[in-house]
């Protein structure tokens, strides 16, 4: 009797101890995951602080003029972000003009036209394009694409647009091979898979009944895509395009190889130019003097600001879509 009570007491005791231990390890594990999650936020804030801190010298020296000035002279220590911002925006915009229609075209092909057996292999092949590291695009662009472009395409384009007003200025000058246009073409190949993957995914969320009712009214495939599917999937397509734009704006290695690195704003798309990331990649390790380094970090801060806005709006669009899709499912 006494023995039994003692054992029971002991069991209860150990049970309490075990439960307490469980509780402790539970809260420790929870704390650990929370700390890791907070670290992600800390990294983000750290990037922001280090960019602002590093660019302080340049921004306080040049003021707001830094944004628009196109001077970039390490000798006289006069720096401005104008040419780099221009190159970044123009090369990305051009890449988008090429890649968005192509990406949507690929998505249409994959969802509507492609034979079922080929769907996966072709889809995978396009997505593999996204996996190829940007330095590979760079070396391919420099050694293979640019020389070919210079010899076979550029002279023809220059001749062709030679007498067309407006366009003759865009496609003017000697065919260097490298330059803004080449960089944009390479960029467009790189971001193509991002656009087509997101677009295909949202195309597949379009209710079949909607498409079928359009077909039953006698719409052609194209009319269904253009009037029904695309409007329905609009925010997803725009979100995917923004995501791709974010990539294009910050793309470094591929662009560095083929853009020519000239701090000039030139009307002609065939002329060498530069982007923010290409400038940093090329000049950072060789930059002498605090002001030079600080100016490079300052254009990095500008790039951070631009990509943040683009990526944040991409997320907002894709999130709202997710919520819509989730809402329908439940």
């Amino acid at each position, binding site marked *: 009797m006494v023995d039994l009570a003692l054992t029971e007491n002991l069991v209860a005791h150990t049970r309490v101890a075990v439960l307490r231990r469980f*509780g402790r*390890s*539970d809260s420790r*594990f*929870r704390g*650990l*995951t*929370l*700390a*890791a*999650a907070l*670290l*992600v*936020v800390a990294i*983000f804030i750290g*990037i922001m602080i*280090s960019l602002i801190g590093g660019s302080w010298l340049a921004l306080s020296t040049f003021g707001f003029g830094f944004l628009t000035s196109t001077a970039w002279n390490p000798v006289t220590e006069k720096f401005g972000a104008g040419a780099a911002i221009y190159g970044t925006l123009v090369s990305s915009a051009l890449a988008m003009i090429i890649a968005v229609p*192509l*990406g*949507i*075209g690929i998505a*249409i092909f*994959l969802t509507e*036209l492609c034979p079922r057996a080929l769907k996966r292999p072709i889809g995978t092949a396009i997505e*593999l*394009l996204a*996996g*190829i*590291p*940007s*330095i*590979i695009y*760079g070396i391919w662009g*420099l*050694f*293979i694409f640019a020389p070919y472009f210079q010899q076979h395409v550029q002279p023809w384009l220059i001749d062709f647009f030679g007498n067309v007003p407006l366009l003759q200025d865009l496609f003017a000058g000697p065919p260097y091979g490298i330059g803004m246009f080449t960089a944009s073409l390479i960029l467009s*190949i790189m971001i*193509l*898979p991002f656009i*087509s993957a997101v677009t295909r995914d949202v195309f597949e969320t379009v209710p079949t009944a909607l498409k079928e009712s359009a077909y039953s009214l006698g719409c*052609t*495939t*194209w*009319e269904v895509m253009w009037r029904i599917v695309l409007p329905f999937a609009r925010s997803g397509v725009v979100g995917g395009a923004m995501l791709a734009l*974010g*990539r294009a704006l*910050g793309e*470094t*290695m591929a662009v560095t*190889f083929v853009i020519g690195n000239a701090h000039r704003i030139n009307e002609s798309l065939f002329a060498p130019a530069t982007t923010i*990331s290409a400038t*940093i990649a090329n000049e*950072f*390790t060789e930059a002498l003097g605090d002001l030079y380094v600080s100016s490079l*970090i300052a254009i990095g801060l500008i790039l*951070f600001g631009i*990509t*943040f806005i683009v*990526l944040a709006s991409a*997320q907002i669009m894709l999130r709202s879509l997710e919520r819509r899709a989730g809402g329908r499912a439940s």
Partner: protein
Amino acid sequence: MNRAIYARRRLVNRTFLTLSVAAAGIGILALALILGALLLNGVAGLSPTLFTLDTPAPGSVGGLANAIAGSLLMSSMAVLIGTPIGILAGTYLAEYGRHSWLAFIVRFVNDILLSAPSILIGLFIYELLVVRMGHFSAWAGMAALAVIVIPVVVRTTENMLLLVPNTLREAAASIGAPRAISIRAVTWRAARAGIVTGVLLAIARISGETAPLLFTALNNQFWSTNLNAPMASLPAMIFTFANSAYDDWHRLAWAGALLITLAVLTLSIVARFLESRQR
């Protein structure tokens, strides 16, 4: 009149559908051209000495041994540092945070980091480590790569944990398993293939990263295992060699490019296979 409209609509339809087939063709052609050029130029540079000799001075015989070793070392360390953090943070988002405002912020920031320009991560580590230590180092390179690993792992871990059916969690709770044990022994195990996918994708992502290494680990022409000194890496070596004026350096750059691409494509195909099994 009606017939004209029909003909026009049919023409428009056919034109645009042809264009979309052409778009897919362009995409595949681009992939084929890039892979073809890599094989054609890269295979010429492949030789046993590629893996045994260090990077040469222009004109002499050499390989990429130091760059390969540097890349392997820095990437694996970055994965070792970044993976646990990424898995834990992803676990917080999927298991504890879910709909809290903190989880919302972490998710938002993580997705920005996922697509943020990697060169900015290089600048961040430069300010954080290189400036303070006073010199470039392999440590800084690892840190920069680890910062790239984390968001990739967080994203896939969260997605894969959310695929685990709630009944499994409830079953674990019903037999009295505390939350931490149920997560580690049940949810993680159920999502293992998916989490491994994330890690593989992260490795694929960093093995080609160049920009964040340029001013953290810098580069090194010689064999070095000193983590406190600049270290060579394949991508940085390709950048240097491709921009040089020497043909033998160009050959090595192509060989290095082929190695990286083979590694990355293999990893992403294995990851894709694992992911389809998880779903």
